[in-house]
Structures are given as C-alpha cells and as structure tokens.
C-alpha cells in the first residue's frame, strides 16, 4: 500500500476535521475530492506530518505518519495550493535549494534543478527572479521543487487553482505525464471534478471529515442511479412535491434548471407522468453527461 490510514481522527479545537477516515491506496493516480472544508488539506497535512493525529494510525510508503515523518518527507513531493517562494532567488536556486534540503548533494541538486525546470517548461526563464513570474509559472515552479528530488509520491493540493484555461490544461497534462509515464504516484486534492476525472483512475471522496466514497472511477460510474437536468414551465410546487414523494432529490440552479436525482429502480418516464398530472410543460430534458459529478453529488448530498 502506498497510503494506508485507519480510523483517522483530527480536530481543530471543537471542529472535527477528520472523523474516522479509513483509506487504502495503491499505485496509480488518485483524486482526493470533496467540497471546501471536507478535510482534504487536513488529510494531506497529516500525511506529511504537519499535523499530529489525535487517534488512528497510518503509513505512507511504508513509513509511520506518527513517528517517521522525516522519512516520508524525504520520499514524497508536495505542491501546496498557495503561492510559495523565496524572494531574491531565481528558479534554479530555488529548485536546487529544496533539492539540497531533501538530502541531495549541492552539485547534483543544481544539475537536477536545470533538468526539472526544462521538464516543466521554465527553461527560458529559469534565471529570472521568482517575484516576476506569472501565476502559471509559479505553479510550474512549485511542481519543479516537488519533483527535484525524484520522489516516489507527489501530493498536489489544488494544482489548477487560479489558472486560466490554457494554463490549467497544461498543468493537467504535466500531472498526467508524471503519473502515467514516469512511474511516480500522485495524489491530487481538488474540488474541481473534471480535473480529477481527467487525471485520476481512483477517487476518494471526503465530506465533512468523513470518507463517503472511494474506488476506481470506472467502477464507481457503474453505480445505477441517474441525474436529469429538466426545465419546466408552469407552477412547480406540486411537481417538486410529487418528485420528492417518490424519493427523488431535486436541486434548483440559479438559471431555473432543475437537477433531479432519481434513485435506482425508477423510470425517467415517471418525471413526464408527474409533469402531465401536475399540468406542467417540460421544455428541456437531459441526462447528465458528467458521471463523476453524479457520484460526487450522491456522495456528499445535494443539499
């Protein structure tokens, strides 16, 4: 197991951030999904040893998260969400500096810094002061410092946060390349579903500090349930009440779209029948095209 945690508990004062989380993760790219405040960053910080667990145990790459934090950090790369840099340094110095801090000899760290800066696409600006970098360049630099010591596992915390569409696409390409072709396992924490869906083969979903789902994305997609997007004309109150009486969960979006979650065993024709009974016109009917969104919504609850 690359990451293995059992019955993990952690609180910030009275606020329970992790409540009995059990995770067993093997090779591959893993997505850590959850809404804000779900406990994703707390879990990453515990895996790195920034925070001490209150209860429970765990191992990362076979090292105990409570007693062998130094070993974990030696073989794990971490890309934090925030902009992180050291003023006055250029990218080469910055990257080799963190290579040395990981235990690389100075010359090797310097050589390796050039290599990884080429790899992440910062070769032409590697001697520029980091303060002058754009957001996208800083993100790439954070990846460079995370891979400079050739880790076995990389933890990405919201890697596409604040990037424009092109920057986001390139960042995801880079992560996919690292995870699929370089034999480095990655754990990506994100609340952006398509990012996880495009880059990961396995997903762990947290909500309010609890593990609500985990598994292979392909297998999770096989779960029988349905999400329909519906637009109606007419008085919706009775229509919604009738749907809820049939155990459907309904969410209304800002632009008047209804998202109807149908439990297994129900027929979508029921929606039309209810509409006909309640004298409602259905102007738009679409089965959701984003299956992970369904899984996520079902796991964390639509309310």
């Amino acid at each position: 197991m690359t990451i293995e945690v059992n019955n993990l508990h952690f609180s910030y004062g009275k606020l329970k951030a992790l409540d009995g989380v059990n995770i067993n993760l093997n090779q591959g790219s893993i997505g850590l999904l959850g809404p804000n405040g779900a406990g994703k960053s707390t879990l990453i910080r515990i895996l790195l040893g920034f925070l001490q667990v209150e209860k429970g145990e765990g191992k990362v790459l076979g090292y105990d998260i409570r007693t062998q934090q130094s070993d974990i950090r030696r073989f794990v790369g971490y890309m934090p969400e925030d902009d992180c840099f050291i003023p006055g340094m250029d990218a080469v110095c910055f990257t080799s500096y963190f290579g040395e801090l990981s235990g690389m000899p100075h010359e090797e760290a310097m050589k390796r810094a050039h290599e990884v800066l080429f790899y992440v696409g910062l070769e032409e600006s590697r001697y520029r002061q980091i303060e002058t970098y754009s957001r996208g360049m800083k993100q790439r630099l954070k990846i460079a410092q995370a891979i400079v010591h050739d880790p076995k596992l990389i933890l990405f915390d919201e890697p596409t946060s604040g990037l424009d569409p092109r920057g986001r696409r390139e960042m995801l390409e880079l992560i996919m390349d690292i995870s699929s072709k370089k034999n480095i396992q990655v754990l990506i924490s994100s609340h952006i579903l398509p990012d996880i869906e495009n880059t990961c083969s396995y997903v762990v979903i947290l909500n309010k500090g609890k593990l609500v789902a985990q598994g292979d994305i392909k297998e999770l997609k096989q779960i029988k349930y349905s999400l329909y997007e519906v637009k109606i004309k007419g008085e919706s109150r009775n229509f919604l009440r009738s749907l809820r009486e049939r155990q459907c969960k309904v969410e209304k979006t800002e632009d008047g779209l209804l998202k109807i979650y149908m439990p297994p065993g129900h027929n979508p024709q029921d929606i039309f029948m209810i509409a006909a009974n309640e004298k409602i016109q259905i102007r738009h009917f679409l089965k959701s095209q984003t299956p992970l969104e369904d899984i996520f919504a079902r796991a964390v609850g639509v309310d």
Partner: protein
Amino acid sequence: MTIRERGYAHWDGELEESKFSWWPIATYGVKLTFKKKFFKSFFFFTFIPALAYLGGIYVSERLEDFHFMIEESAPFIQVNPAYFKSYFTNDFLLFIIVMIIIFAGAGLISDDIKYNALQLYFSRPLKKKDYFIGKASVIFFFMALITLIPGLIFLLTKIIFSGSFKFVLSYPWLPFSTLGYSLILIVFFSFYSLSISSLSKNRRYVAVMIFGIYFFSDIFFQIFYGIFKNQYFSLLSIKANLKQIGAFIFGQKLPYSIPWFYSFLFIIAFCTFGGLVLKRRVKGVVIVK
C-alpha cells in the same frame, strides 16, 4: 514544444540523511543577504571599528614611531583586557550589530511567512530545530565577522607585533572571554532578530521593531534613571545589560552598580522568551479555526 515532449529522467543518486540539514539554509541565507541593495557597501563599513582597533594595537607596539603625535611619557594606547572590553562594548559596534541584523535578519523568517515558504521547508526532512539553526547561522556568520574574528585577530596581532606570548600569558583567560562574549552577543542577537522577524510578514516593520526596541529600551532607562536615580533601571536597556556583562567577562569595573548576573538573567530571559515566540510563530501550516 509541449510539456509532454520533454524528457524526465529519474535521479539515480541516493538522498542523504545529514546531521547538518540546516547547512543549505545558512549558505543560501548568506548569499541572499549579499544580494540585498546597499548591503555590500554597508558590509565594508562594518569593519571600520575593527580596523581602528587593529591600528591601535599596531601603534601601541610601535610607539617610538609615533612620538611626534603624543605628549612625553603620556600613556598613549595600552592593549589590555580593558582595550578588548572597549571594542566589544562600544556604542558604535553595538549600533553596527543592530544594523547588520536589520539587513541580514529582518527578512529571515518574515519573508518565509509572507511568501508561504514555511510549508515548503517543512515538507522536507527538516526539523524546526534545523530551520532555526540554519537561520541563526546567517546571523552568526555576519556577527562573527565583526566580533569573534576581530577579537581573535587582535590577540594574534598583539602576539605577532610584540614578538612574544607574554601578553597571552599575562591574561590567559582573555581568549576565552573574547570567545564567550562574542557568543553571548551572537546568541542574544540571533534570538532577538529571529523572534522579531517571526512577528510580522512585513520586513520593514521588523526592521523598525529591531531598531526601535534596541534604542527605546535605552531611552527608557535614561528617562527612568534621570527621574529616580536608580541604576536598577539599567536592566530595562538592552545596551546597558550587554555592557554590564561585557565588563564582567573582561574583568573590568562594572558600569552600573548592580550585580552583573541580573543582566545575565535578563539576557537569558529575553532569549527564552524569543525562543517561545519562535516556537509559536513558526509552523508548517497556518491553521484557521
């Protein structure tokens, strides 16, 4: 060229577990300080007191060459423990030390907090202790160059110019006093600058605090002493406490008529408080409850 077309090769070396994992922090810290605006010019200026005192040692050994400058039989320059004490506790040197720690120490931790670098440090196999030692080593480097190193050079110069070990044999404890007092200054100013640096994200505020606390503590002492005529108020002043300890270590008359160890306790208390501040302020993660 897209990213995927570029190669990535695994590193075939082995990551070493070092007892000196703070070393890169120290070396890069010193390099970054030299990159600061005006620092290089200021740095040469810091050697002025040492050069003046070194000149004094040369003159004291070559008095016959300088007879034209002095009154007959008047004691001109006597190199003795008082001379060393005078170098280490003079106002100008202490001022230069404060300026050095403003240049080298103000941003040491505050910049890491401001630019979120702490989480990068602590995602490495680095303990808090290593981080602090690395940062304090930057202060050590610059302060040793104007305290410990000149002190040892003074001793060596005196031996070379006098052509004998008579001076060292007369004051065998002087090398230890030089070493001891230099270390007290370095340790105190390391805690002083690092703890203040950890209090703010703004390096300029830190610089103002480093300067302000040092000088206002002395001003408060002067005001209270002026009103109450009680020398115990010297304990309020960083400068007065350091001078008191310096006088004791170099075996000279104490400048204030209070026991020397009160000042020593003040310095220890200050360092302990600084250590607690550092421990509280420097964390791998900022927890928002």
